[in-house]
């Protein structure tokens, strides 16, 4: 089973499902890293979707790149993108242009799912038009509560904020609006006393 298992139930953290085909006039599919396997499974189970499918695929920060697999699925539109930031204008445009009947599927890391969810809510997409599946790395998107900068693909705890350089621990507190966990200075009371980092989010 390659679907990512939730390691804990945290009250502010969303839970994810499995990509399953839904009735729709068009299918917009966004995936990163190992999420590509979930997309392949989806379209192979429901080949009728392919002429109505628009796929955006971003290789994983951990090196997983299924671009060739997804390109070969035969979707009407396949768009490979190097990062979410590079694809976000396209994603927001497609979501903003969406007609009734558009179905949205997101598979991959929590950081990707959260960002697409955030953009879909902002575009006014109904909740039930969105299906998610968490796959691959459990790396987290973390917002530094001090400088507000977001560090992508955090696997270590504590870690150094990529913006302001403070030593942060990852609090189990998740904002859907920011699509990010909260990072809080770990050595505020004893500057310099930072416990060794552990790989918590592999």
């Amino acid at each position, binding site marked *: 089973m390659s679907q990512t298992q939730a390691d804990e139930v945290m009250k*502010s953290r969303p839970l994810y499902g499995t990509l399953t085909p839904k009735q729709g006039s068009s299918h917009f599919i966004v995936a990163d890293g190992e999420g590509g396997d979930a997309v392949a499974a989806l379209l192979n189970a429901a080949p009728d979707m392919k002429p109505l499918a628009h796929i955006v695929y971003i290789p994983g920060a951990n090196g997983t790149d299924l671009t060739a697999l997804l390109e070969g699925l035969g979707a009407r539109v396949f768009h490979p993108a190097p990062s979410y930031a590079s694809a976000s204008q396209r994603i927001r445009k497609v979501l903003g242009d969406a007609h009734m009947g558009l179905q949205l599927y997101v598979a991959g890391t929590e950081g990707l799912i959260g960002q697409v969810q955030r953009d879909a809510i902002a575009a006014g997409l109904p909740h039930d038009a969105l299906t998610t599946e968490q796959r691959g790395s459990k790396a987290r998107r973390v917002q530094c*509560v001090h400088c507000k900068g977001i560090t992508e693909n955090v696997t270590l705890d504590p870690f150094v904020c990529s913006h302001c350089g403070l030593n942060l621990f990852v609090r*189990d*507190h998740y*904002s859907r*609006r920011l699509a990010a966990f909260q990072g809080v*200075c770990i050595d*505020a009371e004893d500057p310099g006393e930072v416990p060794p980092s552990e790989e918590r989010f592999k």
Partner: protein
Amino acid sequence: MSLDDAFKDPFFRDESFFGDFSYKNSPHAVNRFPFPFPEDDYMYSVNMEPHVKGRPGSIFEHYFDVDEHYVSEMRDRARVLEQDPLRCQSLPHMTLAGWDLLELIMEKFAEEYPQWFALTKDSNRWHWINRPLGIDQKFTFLDESTLPMGPFEYITRQAQGDFTLQDQREDNLWIEAGMVTSQADWSLDFDIGMNFHEWHAPVPLAHQMGIFDRALKFLLALQHGAPVRRFNWTMTVDPLLDTSPENYHKWGPTKTTLTPENIGKRQHLRVELQTLIRLPRSNAICFPIRCYLISMDDLVTRPKWARRFHRVIKTVPDELATYKGFIRNKPMILDYLSKFDDGAPTSPGWWPED
């Protein structure tokens, strides 16, 4: 808005909540301090009661308590907002709830403190006077263009305590506006947009106890005209209102500077009076979180409080002391308080002399 005319009424103290920390409670303020422990131990509970008027002179005498710290607290709020404008946010659909709150505060202030505040209405044309802050404002109710800023920010710059506004939908409450400059270590900027369980996620123990499920069920049924209140508390070094997570790396180190010599003056009990009010037009719930600070030295002048507080701190689970942020200094606090606890029984309730 001008603060130039402040302090003409000697009732209002000229004091600071940062830097030299000149904040202090007068003997009157100590006597009316909302000591939040009716018994000798403490554990979480929903502990909600109707927000009704209480003893004359107490913080429950009025709907909103305006006390001797009012002017200085509003000056501190303006300072914090200048440094970090993200401390006041309101999502676009919360404007009507902001007007609801503006109306409530102006009406209650004018009715209960006519020596300081006045509100006159000619249909939707309102005239608001706030003498302690030197404000004289004519505006049109429900017309945002007639105020210098949105109604929520405008009025919460003139009322003590933090305020959040919760929209109610999908059988949940959503925190979608806030004025938060005197918070016990939570971030409005991070939490805005969350539902009730989401924004309480970091609180230990209480979820498993079912506290939040019960509280939410209760609040969804809250009626207009029947507000409720509860207390919360924590410990703060120095009378710093703005214990924000944003600035934690700046104020956190002060926890390491307590000594047995200065703890009585610098360690403060921080009490939040939390009120929950259903607003009439928007159906939103307003949540004022009013912060009261008292130094250990002042607290122990009331023998009942001194005995009880020693016993409360002794029985607080370490997990809670950690969450509340005083685990590091718990032994020193207990050493200090033990000198004032002779083991004598305490009377029920929190009033100092009962």
